[in-house]
Structure formats: structure tokens, C-alpha cells
């Protein structure tokens, strides 16, 4: 990188008394335009989504975020149930996926023999490559019935005193199924980033802990975890962003119930992204279409905030790790 930069500096300044070549100016101009285009694209996306939701914004204002229910016939639309569904499914998925992902990362970096590490890493990354529509298809036809017939009744009868594990729904679809599907989808992201972080922990620190007589787990808890904590937080944020934005798989398994905010996870529900995916083609009025844009606007704002936040965390971690390594 530094060599590239150095060459760049030297070549960017033409020799004194010599004017810049036409080709150079052209290439730099066209390439610069392309880079500018990427930035303009983001602005255009933000503008179009805000523009599309203008009607809904002026009609409902911020009350849209508190109103439960989606009644296009009487023009009473609200996003509260979708906000709830999004929060429940993606936080639930994060809660399930994080320990699993950390376990995978620890196994791969600390425990696994070398010959097993490559194939398992490749397998976990393959999991990330499976399209969401295929996972959704599997979720609604294979996973849903299994959860409904076996897992939900078992959870209800053994842990039913916890209010979120209420009576199982009539079908295999619902918030719970969506949470499981999202868990599967964000698992590879969180685990592959954690894996890289754990590999970045200096071997001297680990050896020192082991040399002092710590068991492997004590070494992980005392050295690896504190060292990688910030990065793991960033990985979790990225996983959360993926879970919140996932539309298709969620739309397939969540049941599409719009007017319900229920603490029973076995009930049907809907998320912001799922609602957009399920409803867009059947939207009847311009106000309803505009309200779907409003939902997209919420998603967009959330994804921008999460992304920038994750970037800041990553930069800070990178800087601190740079200091430690030196």
C-alpha cells in the first residue's frame, strides 16, 4: 500500500514545465467520476426513499412509529408492530447467534487440528453464500413443521412459565421461526469476523498466559476475549444489520400478521423488511405505497447508523491493536 502511495505521489505531480497528458487527465477524470458516482448513488437512494415516503410522513408524522395496525381501507397505517417484530427477531437472532459464533471461532482458532480448520472455515462461509430465498424455502417447508410439532410444544411445556414461550401457534410460522432462520443467516458473518479477530491476538500474550499456568479457557477469558472485545461488538453490529435488513427469508416464515404486538414468540408477526416484501405488489393506494417507503426509510436510517457505528468501532479497535502490537 505504501509503495503504491509513494509512486502515486511522484507520478501525480507532472515534471515542471510539462503539461499533463490528455490520456492521464481523461482516465483520472473518468475514474474519479465513477468514484463520485458511488457517493451520488447513496445520496440518490436517500433522496428517493425520503421522496417516496413524503405523503406518509406528512399524513402520519412520527405517530406512524407508535401506531399498531395496517388498515389501508380506512387509511389508518402504522409501523409499530413491524418495529416490534424487527426488534424481536433480530435481537433474538443475535442473542442465539453470538454465543454459537464465538464458540465456532474459539474452536477453529484454539482447539481444532490444522487439517480440520480449513474445511470447517470453508463450510461456515458456504453457509453465508446460500441465498436467503433458499433458506426461507427450507424454513417454511422443513424447519417450520419441525419447530411446530416438536420444539414449540417442548419449550412451552418445560419453560412455559417464561411469558415469551406461550402457547404454540397453529402453524409453524411466526416470530420464533423467523428468529431461528435469521440466526442461521447471521451466524457465518459473526463467526468469520470473530475468527479473524481471535487469530489477530498476539501469540506472545497467549503463550505468556499459558506459561503462567492458566488453563486454555482461562487464557481465552483473560487474554483473547478482552483483546477482541471491541471487534466482536462490531461483528455483532454487522450481524444485527444483516438480520434487520433481511426481507425475503423472513417474509416466507414469519406468517405476515400485521396487527399484533404479542410477547408470545410463537405467534405470527411481521418485520419492516418483511412487510415491504409481502405487500409491495398488492399495495392499493398511494398512501399505502408511501407508507411502505416510510418503512424503507426507517430501515435505511437504521442501516446507515449501524454501519457508521461499526466502522468507528472497527477503526478504534484497529488503532488500539496497532498500539499493542508495536
Amino acid at each position, binding site marked *: 500500500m505504501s509503495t*503504491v502511495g509513494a*509512486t502515486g505521489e511522484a507520478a501525480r505531480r507532472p515534471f515542471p514545465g510539462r503539461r499533463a497528458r490528455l490520456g492521464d487527465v481523461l482516465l483520472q477524470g473518468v475514474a474519479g467520476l465513477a468514484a463520485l458516482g458511488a457517493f451520488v448513488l447513496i445520496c440518490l437512494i436517500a433522496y*428517493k*426513499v425520503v421522496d417516496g415516503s413524503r405523503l406518509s410522513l406528512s399524513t402520519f408524522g412520527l405517530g406512524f412509529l407508535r401506531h399498531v395496525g395496517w388498515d389501508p381501507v380506512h387509511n389508518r397505517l402504522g409501523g409499530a408492530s413491524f418495529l416490534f417484530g424487527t426488534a424481536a427477531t433480530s435481537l433474538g437472532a443475535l442473542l442465539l447467534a453470538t454465543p454459537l459464533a464465538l464458540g465456532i471461532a*474459539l*474452536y477453529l482458532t484454539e482447539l481444532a487440528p490444522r487439517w480440520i480448520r480449513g474445511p470447517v472455515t470453508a463450510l461456515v462461509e458456504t453457509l453465508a453464500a446460500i441465498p436467503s430465498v433458499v433458506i426461507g424455502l427450507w424454513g417454511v417447508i422443513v424447519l417450520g413443521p419441525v419447530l411446530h410439532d416438536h420444539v414449540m410444544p417442548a419449550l412451552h411445556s418445560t419453560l412455559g412459565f417464561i411469558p415469551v414461550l406461550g402457547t404454540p401457534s397453529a402453524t409453524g410460522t411466526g416470530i420464533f421461526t423467523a428468529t431461528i432462520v435469521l440466526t442461521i443467516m447471521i451466524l457465518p458473518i459473526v463467526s468469520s469476523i470473530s475468527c479473524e479477530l481471535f487469530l489477530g491476538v498476539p501469540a506472545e500474550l497467549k503463550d505468556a498466559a499459558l506459561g503462567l499456568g492458566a488453563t486454555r479457557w482461562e487464557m481465552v477469558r483473560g487474554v483473547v476475549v478482552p483483546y477482541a472485545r471491541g471487534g466482536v461488538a462490531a461483528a455483532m453490529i454487522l450481524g444485527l444489520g444483516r438480520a434487520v435488513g433481511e426481507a425475503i427469508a423472513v417474509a416466507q416464515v414469519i406468517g405476515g400478521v400485521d396487527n399484533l404486538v404479542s410477547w408470545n414468540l410463537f405467534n405470527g408477526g411481521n418485520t419492516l423488511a418483511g412487510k415491504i416484501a409481502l405487500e409491495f405488489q398488492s399495495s392499493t393506494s398511494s398512501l399505502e405505497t408511501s407508507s411502505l417507503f416510510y418503512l424503507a426509510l426507517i430501515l435505511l436510517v437504521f442501516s446507515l447508523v449501524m454501519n457508521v457505528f461499526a466502522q468507528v468501532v472497527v477503526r478504534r479497535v484497529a488503532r488500539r491493536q496497532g498500539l499493542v502490537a508495536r
Partner: protein
Amino acid sequence: MRAADLGMLQRPNDRLRRRRAVNRGMELLAWLAAAIAVAILGIVVWSVAKRGASELNLDLLTKPPVPFAIGPVQQGLANAFAGSLVIVGLATAMALPVGILVAIYVNEFAPRPIRLGVGLTLDVLNGIPSIVIGIFVFGLLVVGHGQKGWVGAFALAVLMLPLVARSMIEVLALVPGSLREASLALGVPRWRTTLGIVLPQTVGGVVTGTVLAVARVAGETAPLLFTSSIVGNQTSWNPGHALQSIPVAIFELSEQPDPADHARAWAAAFVLLLFILFASLSARWLATRSRRKIGRAGR
């Protein structure tokens, strides 16, 4: 280590035993987590393969769907396969040149602050949910004009751009500076150095990045739902009309109650999965090969 362990064992020590037990337990949990992840992948792939392979036949690729079919009619998803080919091909044609140009700018021309800015822009673009991209393109190009195949391709291209540009930036950074210096020292203009010397070095990387990006967007449903999904059943190659695609077809079939529709969805999912797994594996293989080659050129 071993000898010390034995010595400790002979004088039983409750604290040590507890620490060992905790360690054993945690190791077991980590092992279990890895096993669960591999098992999940196995189950997903296995159920798609099992259900898909039994439904797979040539009709799926060659025959269009028959609406309201009664009884065993030979029907397939030819329209979806043709549409996916056209849409993904067009999307690649749109995203690839722009992605390469962005990478050239970042690596060869941009001063440091702009380089970081473009990197952040690409990350943000990559983080926008695909359904939002779909809605954006709907608002930009579909409202008032109707759905078209190339509009769907544009939506996919927006998704591809950050992927292609990111991988290109990484590959360009691998090209040794000495190569540029040698070319510039011979009096070759900068633009010819970039296009004629640096860029050819990265062909392997371009192919890898493109294949990975294609594998990623070939399975995308959300952006096509609003841009190219209201379609007929006849096979069409014309991007001026709305085209069916494999992911959208799977999504629509999975919402149907008829098991025969599910069967076709499984078969299509199987083909899609095969394509994606093949593409990512070959891209991984190509990546290791081209990386080695670029490294050699520097020496």
C-alpha cells in the same frame, strides 16, 4: 508440561480440578458450537439436494410454467432461467466497468482522505438492505414506466458495485509498485501504465471478484420483487419487458399451497444452490492461484 501435570494429579487439588473441569466444559461447548454450525449447513444443503434432485429434469430448464395446470402437466421454469441469465448478465455488464474504474481511482489517483472516503462510501452502500435498494430503484425507474428486465438488472448492479469495487481495490493493491515504476521510468504515460501494465496483472482478481459478486446477486430476490416480477409465463430474452427470475420464482412458488409448486421450487433452489456453490468454490480456487501469480510478478 506433561510431567508437571502428572505431579499435580498425584496430589489432588480441588481448585485445580475445578479449573480443569471448567476448561474441559468450555472446550466441549466450543466444539459443540462448531458441530452445530456444520450440522445446520449439512441439513440445509441435504434437504435442498434431496428434494431438488428428485424433481430435477430437463423439462425444468426447457418448458415454461403452465398456469392452473390440472393433473401431471409437463411444466418447468424456462422463463425464470432465461430471465435470470439476462438480468444477471446485464447487471454484471453495468457494475463491472464502474467497479473497476472506482478501484483504479482509489488505488492509482486518489489522495489518502478521498481514498478513505470512497472506502467508507462502498461499505455504507454494501450495508444498505437489498429490499431498500429494490424500493429505491422502484421509485427511480419503475414508477410511471413499469417494470423492465434491465431495471431489475440495474437494481442488482447497485448491489454488485461495492462487492466488485472492494475486491478490485484489494487486487490492485497487490500489484507491485516496482512494475508501475518500471513502466513510468520507460516514459510510458500514466494512463497507459494503468490500463496496459497494471490492469492486465489483475485479470485473475477481476474474474474472481466478478464470479463472487455474480454468485451473491444471482440469489437476490428482494431487489427484483418490485422491478422485474410481474411477468407472463412465456420465455423471453428481451430486457425491455419484465423478466421472471429464479429467486423470484422460488419465492412465489413457496407461497403457493400446492405441493407440486413446492416441488418445482425445490428443484429450482437446487440448481441455484449448485451454481452458487460451484461459483464460490471455483472463485476461491482462482483467488489463491492469481494471488500467487501476482506475487511472483513482483519478484
